[in-house]
């Protein structure tokens, strides 16, 4: 079942160090552990960043409600797990409810101002305000968290290091999603439409493909992944008012570093941000955010479109 944990905003579950008589120094162990934390955190970031970058690449929309979608998806998952006890159901409900929300947002609010970039941006900002306030009204201001069931809640021993299974699970989900997205976009007809849409929307439209349907589909896919990430994030981090803007920033930096609209960029960006963030928090806790900012600035000065971005910024 679930439990409400009172935790600080950045607390990850305590990871016990076991030396096991091997001659790995404690420092090296910490480093390995931080690296693993970084890679698994990158998994969560990828789930958010991939949807964000696809929506941007295709529709040129910066969805500022993406963080709120994550948070509300997590809350939905929390409620489902509290009432049914099923984690799988919680994942599906968190993702599914947000997919519906995404469809309503795209069809109802964004469609009328399609192509007007500033209006689209501001509308998603307004939606994030309203959703954030309503979530606060319903779920209150205390941090909530979800526990993964059974095996996933335990830890495994890998060499001398014990490591929580839930983090491996999140990474596994991210890898599966990455492979599915890769196949979907690179190998299927729908993916070809998306790729063509990223390159030349008007041409695709002129060829008789209903590009607007593709828009909705991609938007819904992004919202689904964000909701899914919310449920996973609820077990790894905690849910609280403000978690939405915090995770949104991470997703933004992932996409800026990796390049807008590029799936490959989202993978690389997630890894860069996940690792730097964990090293930063472990070794320079006071300046942790600089470890995010510095690479972003360097990359932007060198390549304003990001590492893999095609669109000139």
């Amino acid at each position, binding site marked *: 079942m679930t439990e409400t944990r009172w935790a600080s905003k950045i607390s990850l579950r305590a990871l016990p160090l076991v030396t096991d008589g091997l001659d790995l120094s404690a420092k090296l162990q910490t480093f390995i552990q931080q690296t693993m934390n970084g890679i698994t955190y990158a998994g969560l970031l990828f789930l958010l960043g991939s949807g964000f970058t696809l929506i941007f690449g295709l529709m040129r929309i*910066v969805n500022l409600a993406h963080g709120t979608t994550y948070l509300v998806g997590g809350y939905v998952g929390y409620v489902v797990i509290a009432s049914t006890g099923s984690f799988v159901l919680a994942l599906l409900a968190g993702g599914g409810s947000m997919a519906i929300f995404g469809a309503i947002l795209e069809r109802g609010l964004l469609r009328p101002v399609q192509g007007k*970039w*500033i209006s689209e941006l501001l509308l998603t*900002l307004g939606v994030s305000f*309203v959703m*954030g306030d309503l979530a606060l009204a319903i779920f209150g201001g205390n941090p909530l968290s979800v526990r993964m069931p059974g095996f996933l809640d335990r830890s495994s021993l890998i060499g001398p290091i014990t490591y929580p299974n839930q983090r491996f699970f999140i990474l596994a989900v991210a890898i599966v999603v990455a492979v599915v997205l890769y196949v979907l976009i690179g190998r299927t007809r729908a993916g070809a439409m998306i790729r063509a849409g990223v390159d030349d929307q008007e041409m695709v439209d002129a060829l008789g493909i209903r590009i607007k349907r593709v828009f909705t589909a991609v938007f819904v896919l992004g919202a689904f992944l964000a909701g899914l990430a919310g449920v996973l994030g609820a077990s790894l981090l905690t849910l609280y008012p403000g978690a939405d*803007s915090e995770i949104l920033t991470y997703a933004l930096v992932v*996409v*800026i570093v990796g390049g807008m609209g590029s799936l490959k960029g989202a993978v690389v960006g997630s890894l860069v941000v996940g690792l730097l963030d964990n090293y930063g928090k472990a070794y320079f806790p006071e300046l942790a955010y600089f470890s*995010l900012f510095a690479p972003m600035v360097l990359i932007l000065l060198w390549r304003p479109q990001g590492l893999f971005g095609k669109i000139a910024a």
Partner: protein
Amino acid sequence: MIGGAVRMVARHSHIFQVVAVLVALMVAVIIPQLGSSFYVSLGLSVLIYGLLAISLDVLGGYTGLISLGHASFLGVGAYGIAYALKIGLDPIRAIGYALVAVIITALIFGLVAVRVRELTFVILTLAMGQIVWGLAFRWVSVSGGDNGLPVTGRPSFGPIDLGTDVAYYYFALAVFVVCVLIMWLLVRSPFGLSLRGIRDNESRMRMLGYNVVVHKYLAFIISGFFAGISGVLFAFYNLYVSPTMIDFAHNGTIVQMVIVGGLGTIWGPLVGAGVIVFFQQFVSISVQRWETVLGIIFILTVLFARGGLWGGLLNLMTWLRRRYGEGPPPSSTVAHGLSELDTSANVAVD
């Protein structure tokens, strides 16, 4: 009678604007004489956030660069004051210290920000704003972390002591008027015109030989500088600084002020600041979900009232002028607000 009055107003819409500003100024001067400390505090909030929102309008409304990290400059200004006082500087030196910090921040952030435009600019400023917030939140030895920092003492200029709220209010009003006057003259100057040119069609301006990057860089620094001044005013008003005032929500709120008031109108953001402070201080008493209400108003503004409140008023004036007055209106009185930026994107896609 009424028709005559309407005709009068319509013919002299520019005079109407001057009158409106003078009336607002008179109200601002009278507020402390009402004897309620609540109104003084309210007035200070409107002045400080109004200044911040107007400085964002110079960048967003006139140059086409909407920043979602503008509260950072308020933060750097306010934290600059608090930190300078903490390390033992006197209030006057602290102001110098804070403003230098603001300028350095603007110089550095601007360098990165002017390399990108439109959506990427928004994202970048958002990320930078979150990083400033993160530093305020985490860099405990400097910023005090979540607990924030106290601001110990207000400055006094010779015999003028700003210790009381009323004295400080008049000081803030004077600073506000001077700053807004400078910005108002700036957007009307040839420099301001070239900024608008860049907003409407960047490639054409580049073709005409304008150094677009330098223009944008200057606009960013000027806008950041005035936002920093609002931060200095904020620190001595609130006497306490904390990370909350520069978080994502507050960055968004400033954009909200500019849009609801009227993008690209200078006076509109002040109106917007007034509306939002009114919601925070009055509506919040009776309506618990006032933020939801404000969010919905914001969404409706974006959808249906794209010139904001002030822009709507200006457009009404223009309409009356067409109806009753003579000749086409001067272009400066037509407010397109958001539409201006949306169209500019179409040009820029090329």
